[in-house]
């Protein structure tokens, strides 16, 4: 359940996976205490397309007036400009329905302030890179578990998952690789969802890894 908001900074994540990772960063003290939510209430469209509805709903949550800094953490997917434009449009649409006092962001990684409130946007797997959070995590796993990740690559290649119809879009292929990697690397619970990974086994993909530095830098400067 979201709220009540007692802190001054809120991060809205595109999915539960991003939220799980950021929560772990908070637990380990890598980032300061912040409020964290994720888009995707029951009945909403999946992913960032539900951001406008989410913003409208958040405005009614107890303590929302305490929020002075708002961050959005989403995926670039196949086009960073497209991903950012969808976020921008969500703020415009939300501001036509409620007065949140939060300005419309103008560019990723460039905070914009108005009315004493600041909005910042981070897009994974990092500035200018295509893909998603899982793209970062695959890099972490490749560094820490090269043998197992070679097997994952072999499986993907063997199944021709990237080339056979239906083809896997880039970010979906990353998700498939992560799913396969977690199955191999987490024998106690091969079904562990990525969203629950850090609460279950925080050391498997350490959130302090340099591949995730861009995110902790962003969150430390919200």
């Amino acid at each position, binding site marked *: 359940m979201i709220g009540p908001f007692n802190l001054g900074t809120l991060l809205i994540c595109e999915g539960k996976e991003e939220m799980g990772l950021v929560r772990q960063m908070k637990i380990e003290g890598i980032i300061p205490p912040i409020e964290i939510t994720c888009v995707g209430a029951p009945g909403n469209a999946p992913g960032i397309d539900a951001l406008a509805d989410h913003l409208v*709903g958040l405005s009614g949550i*107890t303590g929302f007036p305490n929020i002075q800094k708002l961050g959005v953490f989403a995926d670039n997917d196949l086009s960073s400009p497209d991903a950012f434009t969808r976020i921008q449009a969500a703020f415009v649409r939300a501001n036509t329905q409620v007065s949140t006092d939060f300005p419309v962001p103008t560019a990723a990684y460039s905070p914009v302030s108005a009315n004493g409130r600041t909005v910042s946007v981070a897009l994974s797997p990092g500035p200018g890179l295509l893909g998603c959070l899982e793209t970062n995590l695959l890099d972490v796993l490749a560094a820490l578990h090269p043998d197992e990740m070679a097997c994952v690559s072999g499986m993907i290649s063997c199944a021709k998952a990237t080339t056979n119809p239906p083809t896997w879009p880039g970010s979906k292929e990353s998700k498939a690789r992560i799913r396969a990697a977690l199955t191999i690397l987490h024998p106690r619970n091969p079904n562990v969802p990525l969203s629950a990974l850090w609460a279950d086994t925080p050391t498997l993909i350490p959130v302090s890894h340099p591949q995730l530095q861009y995110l902790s830098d962003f969150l430390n400067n919200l």
Partner: protein
Amino acid sequence: MTNQNGIFDSRETARLKSTGYQMIRTLSIENFRGIERATIDNLKRINVVVGPNGTGKTALLEAVYLAGGNSPENLLKSKQWRGRELGEIQGDLDTIQAALWSDTFRDPSLGEARVAITDTSGDVRSVEIRKTRSAQIFSPDGDSRLAHMGMTFVWEGPHGRNEVVPQISPQGLKFEPVPAGPGVHFLPARMNVSEAETARAYSRLSVDGDPKLFVDAFRNEFEFLHDIAIEAPIGPPALYARMANGRKLPLTMISGGVAHLAGMMVRMAANPRSVLLVDEIENGLYHDRYESIWRSLFELAEHSDSQVIATSHSLECLRALTRALPDKADQVSFARSRLENNEVQFEQFSGPVFYRAVELGEVR
């Protein structure tokens, strides 16, 4: 009209709408109880107020009750419902006067409080409570223990002006009988619904209208109760119902929640174009009834063109409201009280925003 439970017909609705008052659109409060200044706008058919203790929720209801009534008695009743003893008044005149001012005004030094309600037709009805000098007065029988209360109440609205200066006597406060005001009904949180008032409302409904409206709505919630009627076997009249085991009991003896709900429903049914003020609406009601109760209250309110303003501390109850009336968000308003720099503030939200927020999380 359409209604989910199929209780009402359109002719009866049309008859009720030809009488009574418009719905309140805007409420403004100045220097009343703990509220320095507040405006609640865009009130709807169903209005819910939430917030921590001591942030002005009950004061808001009392403000509507006072402005919508026509007598200082409403102020005294609301004090009693808060648990204040209203027996004999003791002390010197200055002490009594200071206590009354302190209870009523946010800042007694300002000298007056004002509550105004604007209805959907734009008419404004207001009450001003003005601080005046207390003075010993003599009654016709020479009793010099009477005194002016130190406050003057002035109601103004489309139906005229009414000024009342209550008097203090050792037995309590006295005031002249005044004409009845609009239909504003208050169900307090701390005390049981008045059995006698419920019986009177039912009687009025029986004489002037059709008790079937209430009975059907009530039985929709409590199917195990039937044969509802006013009885007075050993005391003042009260509303009774027969239970499944054949025994007929006063509603208050069957269950506090049953009596609470009957109190709400019968007042709505018996008072077209009225305002029902309910403090802590969930009190005494079992959680699995919330949804159905909201639906019934809405249908009764719509049928009688009335309005509900309720406070709540229950997230379950708030969620039940959105589930009960999924396509009525535009007929719901939501406000949250809070203290900011020690002053009461009300945040307001439209029904659609409230619906989205309550789906996400904590809205109390």
